[in-house]
């Protein structure tokens, strides 16, 4: 099967081509069909790649038949296939929702541009996850970021422009740092291929230039993944972007950045160097704990549901980087599985919030008071997502928390274990702000006589709500991939 051989290329090329096609047809409806079909095809490719690498195999694909390390190599292993699956599945679920959602939020004339940008963003995110080339990763990072800025700026609130601008500045600094880091590495090793780089870096690892490269890469990517205190761009971007964009970016953009960080740490610099010779784990630990507590506290005082959830994202990213800082198999498993589960949770949550916004006309808690009486399903979905953020057993948020605590106890770190559970109590505080607003107040005037959002909006959200429960109880896909990838990374990272 020649087609199967080219799956790694198709994974990226299909959504890439759909973007100019969407512009060419200039019709919102057609553009929607093209991009949705492309995202489903991408999902099919991702599933095929995930299955092919499930046994631990690594697929190497030489783009344009230029063999690595000279040409660009696409490299799929258990980790990248896991991220590809996450990104493409999110896109495939979110796109059908987009149609009905942007109907209410974006002017008709811009619809085809929205789909084109969405396709580009998807391409970029998939590209980062699949490429085995450092500079190529930078290119895809920029593709996804630039299209991301546009998508955020499409929000109907004028403040969306400022939010996008803020993100643009911060994101560009991050990208610049990233490319400086890559440049330094190229200077020192003479190669851009990640696998090749890893081999050549061995002897010169402790040179000042490589250390500088590591520092630049760490800060640059941390900006992108919104590691506390580099998260300043995130709350505004999530709050003012169109609902569907928030859902998509929250589920994928920060997660792919985390992937990139893990890739550089484990597959290029090597675990023993990054985590044992340098004080990086300590720094990351402090940042993560700060994120878990400060961002959760800030979230509890927000008056806008989207902003509340945005701060919750910052705190949940703290969980993910906390697991990373442990530098153990279970810690890394916690990181990866929580990366996946939080994407499912936050994606679903923002889709439900989008339903509420579509009916109530805003996401401030005041407007959503009494929501449960008017929109019981939507409210229930938000509560379910909230329970997953808290980490209640039976929801997918529990799995990562379990591994975080386990990994902390393995190291004898009772304090860290207590920090994790205490922080999840803070999550109860901010989730219950919504519960008490939606269930104990009289419905807001703008909700009078309204009903649930149309099925086109509700169905994808409910699908993700089901996923929150599914991945909390049956974890062979999520936990299986995460644990497999963690074992692989710890083995080769030495």
């Amino acid at each position: 099967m020649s087609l199967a051989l080219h799956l790694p290329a198709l994974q990226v090329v299909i959504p890439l081509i759909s973007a100019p096609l969407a512009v060419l047809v200039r019709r919102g409806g057609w553009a929607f069909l093209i991009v949705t079909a492309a995202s489903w095809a991408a999902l099919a490719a991702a599933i095929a790649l995930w299955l092919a690498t499930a046994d631990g195999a690594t697929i190497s694909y030489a783009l344009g038949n230029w063999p690595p390390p000279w040409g660009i190599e696409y490299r799929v292993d258990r980790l990248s296939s896991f991220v590809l699956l996450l990104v493409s599945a999110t896109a495939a679920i979110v796109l059908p929702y987009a149609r009905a959602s942007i109907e209410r939020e974006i002017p008709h004339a811009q619809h085809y541009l929205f789909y084109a940008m969405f396709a580009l963003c998807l391409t970029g995110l998939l590209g980062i996850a699949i490429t085995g080339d450092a500079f190529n990763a930078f290119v895809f990072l920029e593709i996804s970021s630039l299209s991301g800025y546009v998508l955020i700026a499409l929000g109907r609130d004028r403040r969306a422009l400022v939010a996008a601008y803020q993100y643009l500045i911060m994101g560009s600094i991050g990208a610049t740092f990233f490319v400086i880091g890559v440049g330094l590495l190229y200077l020192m090793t003479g190669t851009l291929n990640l696998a090749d780089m890893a081999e050549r870096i061995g002897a010169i690892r402790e040179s000042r230039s490589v250390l500088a490269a590591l520092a630049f890469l760490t800060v640059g990517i941390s900006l992108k993944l919104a590691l506390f205190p580099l998260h300043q761009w995130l709350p505004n971007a999530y709050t003012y972007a169109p609902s569907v964009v928030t859902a998509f970016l929250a589920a994928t953009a920060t997660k792919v950045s985390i992937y990139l960080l893990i890739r550089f740490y484990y597959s290029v610099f090597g675990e023993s160097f990054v985590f044992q010779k340098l004080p990086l784990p300590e720094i990351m630990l402090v940042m993560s704990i700060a994120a878990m507590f400060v961002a959760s506290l800030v979230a509890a005082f927000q008056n806008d549901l989207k902003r509340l959830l945005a701060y919750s994202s910052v705190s949940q990213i703290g969980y993910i980087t906390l697991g990373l800082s442990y530098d153990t198999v279970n810690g890394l498993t916690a990181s990866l599985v929580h990366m996946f589960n939080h994407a499912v949770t936050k994606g679903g949550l923002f889709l439900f919030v989008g339903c509420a916004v579509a009916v109530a006309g805003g996401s401030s808690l005041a407007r959503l008071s009494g929501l449960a009486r008017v929109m019981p399903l939507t409210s229930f979905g938000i509560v379910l997502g909230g329970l997953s953020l808290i980490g209640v057993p039976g929801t997918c948020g529990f799995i990562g928390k379990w591994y975080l605590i386990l990994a902390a106890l393995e190291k004898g770190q009772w304090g860290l274990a207590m920090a994790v559970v205490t922080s999840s109590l803070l999550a109860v505080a901010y989730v219950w702000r919504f519960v008490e607003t939606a269930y104990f107040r009289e419905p807001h005037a703008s909700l009078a006589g309204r009903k649930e959002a149309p099925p086109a909006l509700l169905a994808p959200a409910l699908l993700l709500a089901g996923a929150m429960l599914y991945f909390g109880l049956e974890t062979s896909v999520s936990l299986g991939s995460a644990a497999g990838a963690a074992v692989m990374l710890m083995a080769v990272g030495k």
Partner: protein
Amino acid sequence: MSGGHVLGALAIPLLGGLLISGCARRPNVREAITLVTSATLFLCVAALLPAVLAGGRPHIQLLEPLAGLPIAFRVEPLGMLFALIASGLWIVNSVYSIGYMRGNDEKHQTRFYVCFALALSATMGIAFAGNLITLFLFYEVLTLVTYPLVTHHGDDAARRGGRVYLGLLLGTSMLFLLPAIVYTWHVTGTTDFQVGGILKTQLSPAATAVLLALFMFGIGKAALMPFHRWLPAAMVAPTPVSALLHAVAVVKAGVFCVIKIIVYIFGLDQLDGSADWLVAVSGFTILAASVIALRADNLKRRLAYSTVSQLSYVVIAAALATPLAIMGAILHLAVHAFGKITLFFAAGAIYTAAHKTDVSELDGIGRRMPLTMGAFAIGALSLIGIPPAAGFIGKWFIMSGAADGRHLFVLAVLAISTLLNAAYFLPVVYAAFFRAPKAGAEMHPHGEAPWPMVAALLFTAGMTVALFFLSANLLHLAGKVVAVNP
């Protein structure tokens, strides 16, 4: 086949809840479904009894959310007893609920019955859990599905009560119980409930004591001080909720977990000395809660603090960790359920018929509601521990266990507490029957509460007495829990 019954016990209330939610507009059908569901559940649970008595341990395993930690169920005598009590009393409570909810014109009745059914499903999950992770899952589910019941009235008082309820139950379980479970798994590599315990020699006595503390305070539902406040806070709920959930299902789930963890995780032999502090804490809880109950004028509040105190009877007995005391704990778990639900039923009946909530308003009410107050008296006798009410049996075994080990402290606590119990219950009974109604009290005519309520409370009062004479069966089941321990 028996595994199927376990699944049935979980699924029947779920299915019932689903059907109930579909019948919001037809109250009669809805209530019929509740009754049929509860009866079916009881039969399903009872069908497991012969196998368990014969020494069988029906088990089933479902999913595996964490590697090596499946959702698994395993029916052993203690869980069997708890499931029988909870499902049996659900039938009675459903009859009572119908009278109460209609008699008081409560709103959102469909939500009420649905949540009730879900709570029972979670209770069954706790009763039959085969390992700690399954127990934890259903423990948290039970907290969450009872939250809408506690906050049923939806007003500010309900919201405040709900905050305390959820904050304490969710808070303790996450802060203490979850780390304790993870640590147990980390140390032993299993979380299965096994005869003789799974923590053999891995931990030093000090570490055992700390882990025990995490477990005991983590199980907030057992209402050990200082984490007991959720129980009085939960009294904002309609009385049927207080009766079944906060006298039986939820609180008994708490002490059930305590017994189960002490017997099947720590093992009775392992605890030597590590549980001394628990004896002290639960002893303090018994006395302190009794004193607070003595001063509470609100009848439901008085009952709630009485429950806090009585739950610690079970904990103190479990902490003694001798076979005799454990039997006492199990018996007390069972008999207290019948006594306390009777008392709550009576409180709800008084509220429905006379609209009275305070003890000081009850002078002479026994003349108008002789049946209700008669049942109340039987419940009170049971809690004080006077034969022929069943409460005596539990107390007898706990005291024998304490006497065996020469625990004078425990004996003293139980003796003082008995006096306190008498001091806060008997005046209520006395006032109801022998005092003249207060002058100036509004004299609107009322008789007994609606008949379903009266029937329910007479039944449980009757059971309280009957259990005294049928205690051999209870003993048989309780003996099986400890018999296999040397």
